[in-house]
């Protein structure tokens, strides 16, 4: 079985994986980082989004071996102790989550958007979130959260 080495949330991580092991399986099952979720089997829901080398990636669409040598950040890597990062804080402040299952993917995806397009309009935010499904919130407060995090309220 191949061995993979990567940096996960700033720490070295390695493990033996099967060639078919998905990155999300490596994170959840080998590293027991269960904040990254699996909501579908067709790469549509976005519950599994993590950052690989700074970009958001659906970790169910990538093999663990493809992430060999990469820098991976998951939802567990955002907060500093008890203090949430600004995107997490904005979700909390705007009730951007209900059941929380889509939330890790939403937050990781939203961070990538705000990094790329800090002035994103509501329409751009909604378009960006195409790949993240939430059944609970109706997206209203997710959009608000992202706008707040981007310092983009009232746009």
């Amino acid at each position, binding site marked *: 079985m191949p061995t993979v080495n990567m940096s996960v949330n700033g720490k070295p991580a390695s493990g033996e994986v099967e060639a078919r092991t998905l990155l999300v399986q490596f994170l*959840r099952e080998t590293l*027991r*980082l*269960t*904040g*990254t*979720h*699996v*909501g*579908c*089997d*067709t790469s*549509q*829901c976005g*519950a599994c989004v993590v950052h690989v080398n700074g970009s958001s990636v659906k970790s169910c669409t990538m093999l663990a071996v493809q992430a060999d040598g990469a820098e991976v950040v*998951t*939802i*567990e890597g*955002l*907060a500093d102790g*008890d203090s*949430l990062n600004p995107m*997490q804080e904005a*979700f*909390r*402040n705007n*009730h951007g*989550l*209900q*059941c*929380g*299952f*889509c*939330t*890790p993917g939403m*937050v990781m995806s939203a961070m990538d958007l705000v990094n790329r397009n800090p002035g994103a309009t*509501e*329409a751009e*935010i*909604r*378009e960006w*979130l*195409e790949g*993240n*499904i*939430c*059944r*609970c*919130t*109706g*997206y*209203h*407060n*997710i*959009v*608000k959260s992202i706008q707040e995090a981007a310092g983009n309220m009232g746009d």
Partner: protein
Amino acid sequence: MPDGAQETGIGASVRRFEDQRLLTGNGTYVDDINRPGQTYAHILRSPHAHARIVSIDTSAALASPGVVAVFTGEDMQVGGLPCGWQIHSQDGSPMHEPPHPVLAQGKVRHVGDQVAVVIAESVHEARAGAELIGVDYDVLPAVMDLKAAAAGGTLLHEEIGTNVCYDWGLGDEAAVDAALAASAHVTEIDITNNRLIPNAIEPRAAIAEYNGSTREYTLYTTTQNPHVIRLLMGAFVLSLPEHKLRVIAPDVGGGFGSKIFLYAEETIITWASARIGRPIKWTAERSESFMTDAHGRDHVTHARLGLDADGRFTALKVETHANMGAYLSTFATSVPTYLYATLLAGVYTTPIIFANTRAVFTSTVVVDAYRGAGRPEATYLLERIVNKAARETGRDPVQLRRQNMIQPDAFPYATPVALTYDSGNYQATLDSAERLADVAGFAARKAASEAAGRKRGLGYSTYIEACGIAPSAVAGQLGARAGLFESAEVRVHPTGSVTVFTGTHSHGQGHETTFAQLVSDQLGIPIESVEISHGDTGNVQFGMGTYGSRSLAVGGEAIVRATNKVIEKARKIAAHILEASAEDIEFADGSFTVAGTDRSMAFGEVALAAYVPHNFPHDTLEPGLDESAFFDPANFTFPGGTHICEVEVDPETGVVEVKNFTAVDDVGRVINPMIVAGQVHGGVAQGIGQALLEGCVFDSEGQLLTGSYMDYTMPRADNLPSFTVATETTLCAHNTLGVKGVGEVGAIGSPPAVINAVVNALSDLGVTDVSMPATSQTVWRAIQDARA
């Protein structure tokens, strides 16, 4: 609220305590849990919608690497999955209740039906093993069309001699027929309420573990009601005593009804965990969610509404075929009867109503409660037929509604369909919604759309629902096999902090926050001193769970009552220590004070005294401060409101865009406005999803064509606008909080508002009806048909 960060009382938008863990990846969902020595289950499912099983050969699977065990229906001779609500047909006979096997017994009745379970060292090995099971099927014709199935033909359950589960009626049919015959105008409608697939984003999952030395089972499962699962699985299926079966529902990723029911998979692995003596984990793949989570809605209805010459509703007759799917799911039978027909008065004064529901078995996934459950179907029918009646009689649809509405001074109002509404003010929600939706400016917006080649429309829904499920006495009379009370325990610790155990379950609703607001407010202690515990039958005394928008109206009220008992006990303790009589002790702002003096004790001091009872008169005063209450409501609660949808349609492509959606709901007293608004947002999104995007499709052979997110259109962020939501409040008359419930209003009120808006937009093209889901293709066709 002037000071959002500090304020934690009733009415404050307290930020949720749940969020810290859920936002940092530290939630604990079932699939996040792993038990030592755990194995993995994979279910072999039927590829056919209807077939006899001739033989099953498991030998190759058993020999496959990593496979620990394989079980079929022959091995698993246990009770069937029970149905919790008995309906009687109009002729007095009880409904047909064919067995609902946990693993197929000789026959399969829908694609996805469970045939065998393979348990292995890994998920891959379990799946590989299942592929080696040889099943010889004798394929039978699928039973797909509701009305045809009701009429006869191929029988899904031969032993009952029919595909009709029951033929139920409510009301006086002859009187309604006579009133319709005497009406100045009768509007008829044929309407389909499209079948939906719930799609909580967390797939169902379970882990079962058996402890051979204590003979105890522990089941972690994605449920909205762990005690109900324990009762149904233990008592009816596996014959396990409840004290030996612990059910834990940790963080659960959404339910919407689909996680109420007792399912086969969790039952199979619980049973099998004792057989193999190791923990077993099962997690649904999304494709399994599509074909095994109980679906929602699926009604075909014909209705007639009578009007007199002045436009007053005279009578309503509703005939519905309701799809049960292949078997009876836990609460399936109540949905198209007592959760549906009892709502057919809506907010109107229609004097007599008759409803007939024929529940039909088909070769499809079971159908059961999905957010709203019966009430969205009633609302959709009413709010569409009222619009059609307005059009046919040349009346304004809003005026026609106002004219027929129950007046604010008419409460309590007894409807002709068995309910008594306790409070409401429908005109107030309508007025407020019209203001917020800027109806006055609609004409100008429509003209602007027209200039751009688009059609703009406005659609209304003035709805009511019954929730806060439910008064047990009423439910019992109507056939419920369970009581529908709720329980709470308020345990005060020696240092004055409090753990509240509730029988409800939160899977997104924020109970850990809202319930803490209640208790901290009542006891006058900091909200951080209150912890809410739920979801574990090993901790929580009992509970009926969370569905039917009941958690606050029933479960919250139980908490209030248990907290009142705590205050009364604490008052006695304070009286003893302050050497006064209990009647003279006043409790306010967290302090017990002897009236008219400055002698007082803080709540925390009384708590400590309760556990350090050095000089208690033990014959009259027990140590400890821990009280519980069971609350059984006197009536349902009746939230209602007005939803107004504004759409723009491209007549060339049929694409519908929701431009504005305004919801003004009366949900009774609001404890946490932020959470209430969030519940409405989510419900409205699901309602818009039903109206425009979502629809479950089977082919004629019973294959599920919408079996993944590639084929079943979930509402995405860019399908929806930001919503305008507000509340108008009348208080519920029969709980002390005055709360009514908010979980379902969004999904109940919204679909007809959307469709009425689409029809309104296209009315000058001659379109009078558009069916759900109003996809661009459906709308384009409606336009073409109207032009032809």
